[in-house]
């Protein structure tokens, strides 16, 4: 018996338990591509896109694995499917929208090793979401990821012009800002309840 509404699933994935700031999923791109706002935003868009597709794919695989009774293949099939989905999406975009490919292209291969995508697939399975719930969950997760990335990028662009003490330069500073952002997002706890 579950009482989570779709709205709560969305808020939960995007704000309350933001993938980056509460689950640390996708920390690598969070630290890596959050230096510039334009890059961060495009990366976020690419992630939302891939998340939606791979979430649907993972839902299908999970149903299939239950049907053939082979739960132990879950991880392997998820990772394979995500990798090939990303590959397919890349080819598809390249074929049909070169401008979109130009904007998102270089991020797509990076997404394969983005744990947020695999994490999404695993979480939705663990939580037993149905198809629509999975979709909403993926959308929320993607938007939350983009939000965290974009906020971080804005702050980092501002901090590029700050007299950071030598000792805090680099990853340490980014982590500290991430920590404060994570504190900030604690304010969303209980939303939708």
């Amino acid at each position: 018996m579950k009482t989570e509404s779709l709205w709560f699933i969305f808020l939960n994935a995007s704000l309350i338990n933001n993938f980056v700031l509460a689950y640390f999923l996708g920390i690598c791109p969070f630290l890596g591509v959050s230096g510039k706002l334009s890059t961060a935003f495009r990366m976020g868009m690419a992630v939302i896109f891939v998340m939606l597709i791979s979430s649907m794919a993972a839902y299908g695989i999970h149903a299939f694995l239950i049907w053939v009774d082979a739960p132990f293949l879950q991880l392997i099939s998820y990772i394979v499917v995500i990798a090939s989905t990303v590959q397919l999406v890349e080819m598809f975009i390249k074929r049909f929208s070169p401008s979109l490919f130009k904007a998102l292209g270089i991020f797509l291969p990076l997404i394969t090793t983005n744990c947020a995508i695999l994490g999404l697939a695993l979480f939705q399975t663990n939580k037993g979401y149905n198809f629509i719930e999975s979709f909403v969950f993926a959308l929320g997760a993607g938007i939350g990821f983009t939000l965290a990335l974009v906020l971080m990028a804005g702050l980092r662009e501002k901090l590029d012009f700050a007299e950071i003490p030598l000792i805090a330069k680099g990853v340490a500073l980014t982590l500290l800002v991430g920590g404060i952002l994570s504190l900030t997002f604690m304010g969303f706890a209980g939303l939708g309840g």
Partner: protein
Amino acid sequence: MFKKTLHIGTSPHIIGGSSTDQIMRNVVFALLPVAAFAVYTFGLSALLLLITALASCLLTEYFLNRWIDKSSPLSDWSVTITGLLYGLTLPPHLPLWMVFVGGVIAVALGKFIFGGLGYNVFNPALVGRAFIQAAFPVAITTWMAPFLPDRFSHIPGSTLTLPFLKPVYDITSGATPLSLMKFEHHTTDTYNLLMGMTSGSTGETSALLILLGGLYLIARKMMNWRIPVALLGTVYLISTVLHWSNPDIYPGGLFMLFSGGLMLGAVFMATDMVASPITPLGATVYGIIIGIMIYVIRVWGGLPEGVMYAILFGNAVSPHIDNFIRPRVYGTGKQWSKS
């Protein structure tokens, strides 16, 4: 005979307006009545708390700056504001060791790490407060009733808790107006809120004194009035409209304005110049965003009070506001483009 050497320098050769340390000093002045009232309301524990908060912030600033060989960091008064504001946001009988920890965090993490004055992307006092809130959630949500008869003779045991130990409360705790509203659907009288006759954080109870301090700063042009006006206006507007639609669920506008840390946050926290947008329109948008966030967290979220988180969120958004809201530069734009 004239001097052999004249001073040179580039224009302008005169400067006007107030200086940074003057602005900061005036903010401190504006906060003093609030602090005094806090001591009057909550007694010795509030006094000790404010002193500890100030001391921890000042000491941290002093030693960290000495460590990296930056000179006279205290003379700009900014850290004094941080210390005072930070202290005013804490519940009055919080153990002093927690107050100290938060003060160190506020300055070290909220200010020093970003390069000190002028570079803190978040309001340092709120960073310290948010840290304490997350670290000691129980202690920071236990409130003391105001105007206890023995408040000037008795220091609550919790205040003097030894470092790293849990506080033990020996004093009547009081519920804040907001938690009364949220969990018991009981709204407090606006007059009491305005005058500060309620329990709450040390410095947030008297909305009136905070407003007066704000008006003083606005009159002296040391504060961007757009931020508090937009913020308070937004909260008032949303709550009035929703209250009108369903008075049982949604509290009224005046109650929302004068309860909790909203007034202190809107007047003294959100207006932290460094962490807020620089353009007039940007400041307005920033105020509106924080206002909406406060309402959402207070009414639909899980916390009775959301001002701190809303302002931190506003701080995080403000670089984007500055990026996207820029005044049209003179002589640019469609109608003035060269034909």
